[in-house]
């Protein structure tokens, strides 16, 4: 039984939106960047530039989705380390709140904000996006939430090992953002050197991108069960690891 889960989740959403950069930085900024980049790319869209068109049709939307997920994870790493350093985690833990309630609340907050940012981006895309695309909005959102949820477990692992809140942001970024280069979004995994292929195969982002691209293009979920399974396995491994090494203070 997770006593206090909904109240804590709602409270954490409100607190997050009160941060000076909270709502703006994590919800509106990605949407604004998306609109500006797509307008810029769209301006150079000539009938001959097939690769730009292809990028706009699938690549950019998936990249934006991945960035939304990663910024959520990074923000979780930062918040957890600030809470630990400030003794907030310890204070919450000395109540009947179960540890898993506190952590679940933060995961729910990040998933809610991810879904919200996603919805705003879709709305902005409908109006401003230069290429008309039809994609399963609901399915894509679910795919993004599964991806975020899996990557959040890596966030917890990072939050378990960063020494202080000051290092949380840079260390988190240094671990998370290189994944974008190896996830198959820019270079197909098959054409990477073997060593990098191995790395790419263990990164959750590789499976997220495969899943997101597939669902975006309208492929069936049944064709991507391997991706979902991989994301679940990564979640299970990282959660088990961070349960062992997580420090409350």
């Amino acid at each position, binding site marked *: 039984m997770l*006593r*206090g889960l909904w*109240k*804590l989740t709602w*409270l*954490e959403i*409100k*607190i997050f939106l*009160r*941060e000076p950069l909270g709502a703006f930085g994590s919800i509106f900024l990605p949407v604004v960047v998306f609109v500006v980049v797509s307008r810029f790319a769209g301006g150079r869209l000539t009938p001959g530039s097939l690769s730009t068109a292809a990028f706009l049709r699938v690549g950019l939307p998936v990249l934006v989705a991945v960035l939304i997920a990663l910024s959520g994870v990074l923000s979780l790493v930062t918040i957890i380390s600030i*809470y630990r350093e*400030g*003794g*907030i985690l*310890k*204070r919450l*833990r*000395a*109540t*009947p*709140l179960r540890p898993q309630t506190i952590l679940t609340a933060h995961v729910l907050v990040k998933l809610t904000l991810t879904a919200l940012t996603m919805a705003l981006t879709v709305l902005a895309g409908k109006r401003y996006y230069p290429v008309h695309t039809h994609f399963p909005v609901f399915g894509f959102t679910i795919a993004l939430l599964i991806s975020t949820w899996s990557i959040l477990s890596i966030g917890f692992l990072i939050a378990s090992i960063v020494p202080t809140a000051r290092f949380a942001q840079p260390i988190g970024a240094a671990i998370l953002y290189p994944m974008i280069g190896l996830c198959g979004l820019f270079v197909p995994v098959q054409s990477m050197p073997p060593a990098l292929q191995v790395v790419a195969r263990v990164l959750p982002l590789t499976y997220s991108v495969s899943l997101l691209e597939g669902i975006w293009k309208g492929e069936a979920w049944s064709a991507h069960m391997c991706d979902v399974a991989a994301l679940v396995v990564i979640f299970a491994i990282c959660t088990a690891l961070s349960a062992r090494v997580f420090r409350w203070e």
Partner: protein
Amino acid sequence: MGISGTPNPVIQVSRIRKSYGATAAVSDVSFDVTEGEVFGLIGPNGAGKTTTMECVEGVRRPDAGQISIMGLDPFRDVYQVQDRIGVQLQRAQLQKRIKVWEAVDLWASLYPKPLDGNRLLEQLGLADKRNAWFMTLSGGQKQRLFIALALINDPEVVFLDELTTGLDPQSRRAIWDLVRGIRDRGKTVFLTTHLMEEAERLCDRVAIIEYGKIIDIGSPQELVGRHCSTRTVVLATADALAEERLRAIPRVDNLIRQDSQFTLQGQGDDFVTEVIQCLSEYRIRVTDFRTVLPNLEDVFLKLTGHSIRD
């Protein structure tokens, strides 16, 4: 030990140990806390106060030894225990932008029978801060909020760890009144402090702890009587023969003269009376007279060989 005759221990700590790596934070600590009393664990920073308290709260597990609180095991039955205790942690913080009422509301929702949060905030003088963010509160206001959170479940035992550290004297006094109020409502209070004045004013009994070991336990008066029997009298007189007469008092161990001011030290409760009798017998006119009684600070100095502030 109990005032009403049969002692009724709410907390029993027996021979607990706790090490962090190679450092022993607590070694072989035992004590009982009686129902309805204010019990203080006093000692310098790093003496093992917080570790001991956190073991009793169930936040930490001792490496060895037994703890029983209200008949329960604080670590095994942690959730049952947490419903019945209130906790204020040292140097704890809340989310910077959580509002006072939101914190109280969240805490209230975690317990089966919470008190009325609004009334509690009123009693603690925080009613007009209901909508303030935690980060905007002063040190004293934060501590009062933490007291409110520790009391919200109407606990049987309240734990207060270094409650007034870092507060100005005025806020400190206000907090002391609140703690007395908690005791008056029949709660058992277990606190830690490195302020001897705080311990003297609040605690029915204290345990002095240093290097993870308890040196002595008793009421402040008992400890003073046991370890510091020296009484000091300070008086001022212009009488030329005063020094000679005062030196003649049999119990005087030490006499220091600075111009017209005399400081006399002697043993036992009768010492002050003897000084007064001497003054009246020789009709020595004094312009100042005060006694300096030993306090816990002196007890600590005597027992450990150094001041608690060192």
